[in-house]
């Protein structure tokens, strides 16, 4: 409950800073949006009408106060560009983003865990060296280059998959792979180093001395404790995926949240920027909450500390 209440000051803080930054950035939304839709410079009367319609002539604090007052009633305002409600604009694009974010994250985590564990267990083996070199390469390749490489290989050369666009399951493969491969490397390295550290702990040696099977020692005892930093990092990755993956969405013509928000920033559509900031803040606070709960599940010592605190409080 306390963590959920934290959302309120978080929202206020980040929305204020986002509002301030957007206002300070050079560029007038009226000028930008009207010039684009008219295909020529707008007249002063058109600019004035636009500014009056969206209250852009009001002082910064008045604009922000009005936004907060509306936001607490669930009204995040309307987009300067489309005139449609901000909430609807964001929510309508979320399914497309989730459609690649969820499988992308799943593949990344599974691959990272598998390779990371094998690499740690078979330290300094050919597999370990190979996976580390692979991770280094994957980390060095920008995601847009990776995306193009995958398109060229699987779509243009082999003709197995469509180049881009949102459609059936085959349209998912390349964007999901791009997202997954771009993040697997760092997650895998973290898994490996964290597991190696845990494998040196005394309780692991004790477990082995007790004759427990190696697989059981690694999976049941070592990996579970090694996962704590991995979970933290993975949660951040997931947050990033959910709040939009601009490059992947642009390259694969995927109509998600990321590209939409970047275009809004270029057009100084403050209403969308504000709505997105609140959305992002909420996603990260909720993910952090989920991670904290997962910590308790993964590490009994944390559970005991929480229980002890509860006992003192009660």
């Amino acid at each position, binding site marked *: 409950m306390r963590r959920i209440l934290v959302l309120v000051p978080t929202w206020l803080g980040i929305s204020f800073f986002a509002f301030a930054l957007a206002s300070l*950035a*050079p*560029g*007038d*939304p009226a*000028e*930008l*949006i*009207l010039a*684009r*839709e008219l*295909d*020529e*410079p707008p*007249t*002063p009367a*058109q600019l004035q009408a*636009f500014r009056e*319609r969206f209250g852009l002539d009001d002082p910064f604090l008045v604009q922000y106060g009005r936004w907060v007052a509306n936001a607490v009633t669930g009204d995040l305002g309307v*987009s300067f*560009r*489309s*005139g449609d409600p901000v909430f609807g604009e964001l929510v309508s694009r979320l*399914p497309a983003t989730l*459609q*690649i974010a969820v*499988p992308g994250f*799943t593949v990344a985590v599974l691959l990272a865990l598998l390779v990371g564990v094998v690499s740690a267990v078979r330290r300094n083996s050919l597999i370990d060296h190979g996976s580390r070199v692979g991770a280094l390469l994957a980390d060095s390749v920008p995601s847009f280059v990776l995306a193009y490489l995958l*398109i*060229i290989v699987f*779509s*243009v050369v082999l*003709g197995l*998959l*469509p*180049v*881009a*666009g*949102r*459609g*059936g*399951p*085959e*349209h*998912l493969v390349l964007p999901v792979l791009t997202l997954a491969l771009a993040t697997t490397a760092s997650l895998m390295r973290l898994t490996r180093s964290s597991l190696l550290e845990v494998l040196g702990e005394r309780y692991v040696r004790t477990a082995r001395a007790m*004759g*427990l*099977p190696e*697989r*059981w020692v690694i*999976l*049941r005892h070592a990996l579970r404790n090694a996962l704590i930093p991995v979970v933290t990092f993975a949660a951040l990755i997931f947050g990033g995926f959910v709040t939009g993956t601009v490059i992947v969405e*642009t*390259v694969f*013509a995927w*109509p998600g949240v990321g590209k939409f928000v970047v275009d*809004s920033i*270029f*057009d*100084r559509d403050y209403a969308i920027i504000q709505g997105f900031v609140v959305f992002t803040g909420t996603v990260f606070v909720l993910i952090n909450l989920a991670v904290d709960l997962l910590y308790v599940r993964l590490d009994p010592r944390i559970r005991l500390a929480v229980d002890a605190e509860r006992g003192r409080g009660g």
Partner: protein
Amino acid sequence: MRKTAGASPSACHAWRSRHAVVLVVAVLVAATLGDGVPGGAGVARAQEQAVQELVVGAQGDPWVESSEADQKRFANYPLNSDVCETLVRLTPDFQVAGSLASNWEYIGNNTFRFTLKDGVTFSDGQPLTAQAVEYTMDYTVEDPDTSGFAFLGPDSTVVVDDRTVEITPTEPNLRLIEQINHPTYSVLAPGSDPFANRELTCTGPFQVTEYVPGERLVVERNENYWGEPAKLDKITFRFYPDDTTRTLALQNGEVDLITGVPRGVLAGLQGQPGITIAQAPVGQVVLAYVARRDQAGADKLLADPLLRRAVAHAMDREEYVNGVLAGNAELIDTVQPPAVLGEHADLVEGIDYDPEEAARLLDEAGWTTGPDGMRTKDRQPLELVIVFDPSRIDLTTAEFVQAQLREVGIAGRIERLDAGAYREAINSGNYDLDLSTPNQNDANPAFLLSLRWYSKATGENVPFISPGPDTEFERLIDQTQQATDPAQLQRLAAEAMHQLVDVEVGGIVLAGTYQIYAMKDTVQGFEPHPSGTNQRWSTVFLTE
């Protein structure tokens, strides 16, 4: 003990593993449940070829994150899917020709009369009437923010009879005929409201059958078309915002034709078997707007005519066309496509590359060369601020200009700005050279001149670049506003452009550019229009 201890966790682990796998598969399957078309290339696509379906790889969806004004132009602008038609149309040589109107004339008092063609019907079978034109114009201009650039108001259009309509702009505007061929003024059937519901009934050779925002627009042949029927059964416009992806989609065979081919990939595509490149006539001009004054009205460096002319002489335009643009452009002298000036285009002479003359002019203006080769006057370095429109000009062009200036001892400072900051810079006069690429989308030969350099124009950046009210340029633009004869209008516009380019050096032309399309060899009958927003598709067909 060991066996027991091992068996139980293993069983437990196996159970968990199975569930994990099922969960992952379920997540993947659930995530794949989205709407959309299945498949890209393949059997289904091959079968569809039999029904003459053209798949076009277009740039980003222009209506998905757009304003009310843009959404009202759904399927018409900036991507023209050939669904609607205007009263008059823009020909590829930028002249006005009849479309839905068989006749048009200026009848005095700022009023134009249009007579509609006989036998024209909308795609739903209802006849075209003057009431539809009135509905369209009123619908187009009802948004007070965007009442259109032709100065039309809610009372501008009056029905005379079923086949006659009169249009009177709200302000003196004799250029209405040249402007109203813009797709903004496409005629809709009464009741059509693309902004509210994407409902669009028009008279064109195609009609919209499906639209998935951000993904695709599908149009099919209008079987009730009043003119020559379209050869294609269906066109699917798929949106690919990324240039490289769009190109790869053509190479992969996922699309038949792509728009907006990036110049960087052109050389690679040109050599590929089975792919044809089509270039439209020049429809855009790469130019530098020259700022003479700052926001306070004080002279900037380029207020000096010698310096402006020196900058123009410093530009090796041939090198720009053949080097930077790899020959995919034309060397022109006019700030609008020369075709729009007709036979009078030669009145604009242009300023040739002549670094010696540039150096002489700079010497004459008192800028002396220092030991580093750069020029100064009274210890003030000669430095010009270069800004460029990030949506139309790439950094390479700005760097080319910078390098050319350096050759004659002028330092160029490139300000790399996003769209918002760029607009702020040009509206506050914080630049010396503004690089942009204006398009010509109507038949008005003086449109850019009167929009950007005419002192009576309302644009915020006009005061910085206008030659000023007491100039020959201004007098000629005044006359273009009053001209009623198209030939006279072209001559006056050409004379004004001569004043601007050759005398005032108010705009420095770098090149004329054009729309580039790439397509499979199987695509035939495609006639690229110099104005991309006026592109038509009804003549296109596919061969085996």
